């Protein structure tokens, strides 16, 4: 979910484009299965984290909302805190 939010930060994309951005960004480490991707998009749209802006042929194009941006930053902060905790623990345990 974090990667999906991240991918939407700087543009409007379709589901397929998001899958490709995430795969490229993580150098193939993270691959979004189609069902996972569409469940995330459905859930994000329902929660107004994303909104559909237009359609391009078969594709639906989404953009992130302010709520989504806030959610991304919250999530990022939590992850940073996790990494900081991990670093502290490793340092203290030496």
């Amino acid at each position: 979910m974090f990667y999906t939010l991240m991918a939407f930060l700087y543009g409007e994309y379709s589901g397929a484009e998001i899958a490709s951005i995430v795969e490229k960004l993580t150098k193939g480490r993270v691959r979004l299965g189609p069902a996972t991707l569409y469940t995330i998009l459905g859930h994000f749209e329902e929660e107004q984290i994303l909104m559909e802006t237009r359609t391009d042929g078969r594709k639906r194009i989404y953009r992130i909302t302010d709520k989504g941006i806030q959610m991304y930053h919250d999530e990022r902060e939590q992850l940073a805190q996790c990494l900081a905790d991990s670093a502290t623990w490793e340092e203290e345990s030496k």
Partner: protein
Amino acid sequence: MKYCYKRPAFDFYDTVAMECWLSDMAKRGLLYTGNNLEYFRFLKAEPQNICYRVEPTTNDEMEPSDEMLSAYTDAGWEFVAHQGNQFFIWKSTRPDATELHTDPIVQSESYRRLCKKLTRSAVGTGLCVAVISAMILGGFLASDRPVTLFLTSPLYIFLAVSELFIVAQVVQQARSALRIKKMLADGFSLSHKKDYHKGYRVYRIMNVLSLLFSIAVLVTALLTLTTDWRKSTVDVTEPLPYLSLDLIEQSKEFDWADPYPIYQSNVDYNNFVDFTWTLLVPEHYKIHQVGAEQSHMWSDDSGYYKPSATTEYCRLTFSAFAPALLNELMDLHLLEGETYTITEPDAFDRTVLAVNEEYSMSHLFVQWGNRPQSYSR
């Protein structure tokens, strides 16, 4: 193209079991193509290795969107069919197909939506069950013969058992979906491998019992329509479980009342026999007897003496119901506000003799094993 229909011997909402079952069917040359009500339609073909995925739908649509179809196709999956608005079934023969779900937490979200739909449907089912239960209960409460109604109306039992089965099914479905949702939410991916033969013995037994029960009740209901009868007593050739009025009266003056046919029927409604049966009451006779008016008066001078008697005889499948039925017969025949002299002679399993002096009426109630009977004169 040849098709065959099968019904899985496990709960529909156990999606992993469903995937394994569909794959096993494909290995046997039966390719799943869709559903007809609760039956799965299979195309007969060469045995194949096909991987199936049962995916809860994200909304109430019956078909995946074009965008979804395109994304799934790129990932190596082909849409097969939908099951109501709850599941899309996908298949793949490509070993390099991307797994549909790569994140169990996200997948749990689709099961959360499924559980929500199931909750809505459970509420609807619960309301229907409550309404039908109220109707059944109301029928029993309104009846002056609830025990007889229970024993002689297979429809009531059928409805009650069907309701129990429906409730059990809804609970089972909810349990299956919740179990998968919890597992995914805890971060465990689905293994997509399951021995669906195990763990569903009770479910299969329940299914078979329910089917047998439904068949038995429906067959009985149809049979009783054709085998119940009403005849004039003189036309009955088989031995009847009753005491004939002439033997009781022991009077030279006794004679039977003239035949009294109603609506051009052949039945003498003065002296006739009703016979009905059900699985719980294999024999149920009601025998009505009326004698001709005699020359002497009733003891209260209310008119000329005219003897009559009614016998009700039941043979029950389960003798446990006999005492309740006998009590019900007594409640039915002994009127409130009337005075009876009641004696219980030490005969049979239970014998009650109630005599109403005022109206010269006597009632004999006898229970002998699984045979409760009443005799009113």
